[in-house]
């Protein structure tokens, strides 16, 4: 399957792209997918991940997800 990876703010600067579509399997975790496409990028604890627009676990398989978003510390309002 294909999954769309979105980055924002600091994560976009560090990874060098805002959006990228990659092949992934439903059994892969967000951490594994990210490690595969950006081996040098190790997200610290302040960076959350969202799968299909809901906060998710870095180490839980993504399932039939269409989107994975990296969420650095937020600062809206």
């Amino acid at each position, binding site marked *: 399957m294909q999954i769309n990876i979105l980055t924002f*703010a600091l994560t976009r600067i560090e990874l060098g792209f805002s959006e990228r579509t990659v092949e992934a399997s439903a059994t892969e975790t967000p951490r594994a997918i990210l490690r595969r496409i950006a081996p040098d990028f190790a997200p610290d604890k302040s960076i959350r991940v*969202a799968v299909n627009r809901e906060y998710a676990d870095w180490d839980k398989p993504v399932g039939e997800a269409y989107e994975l978003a990296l969420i650095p510390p937020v600062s*809206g309002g």
Partner: protein
Amino acid sequence: MKIHIEFTHSQIVPPRILAGANEIGAQVEFLGIVRELEDGQAIAGLHYEAHEPMAQSTIEKIVAELAVLYPCEAVWLIHRLDFVPVGETALFIRVRSRHRQSALRMIEAAIDRIKADAPIWKRF
């Protein structure tokens, strides 16, 4: 309860209020305004970005959860994105409720939760 969440890339215009809600006893509005100094440095404004669909659903969920504690009749929330000059409004919230406590507490709690969880970022 009516919940209206919106993102705009231009100046925020507070929505017009429709008449006919005689049970509304309180209306509270909050405007988050860009300050001149950020970390002690003078700035021209702030740049905001968001994961808009996720921010929309996250804020809707926050407001719906808070409404269990603080019953309200209506919540409007407008967040401006892209460049917001100093002195202009980045966030507008209006809450209408039967009693003032619910509206006041809804506003404060919603802002705290949005600042913690809504995928919106600012930089200068």
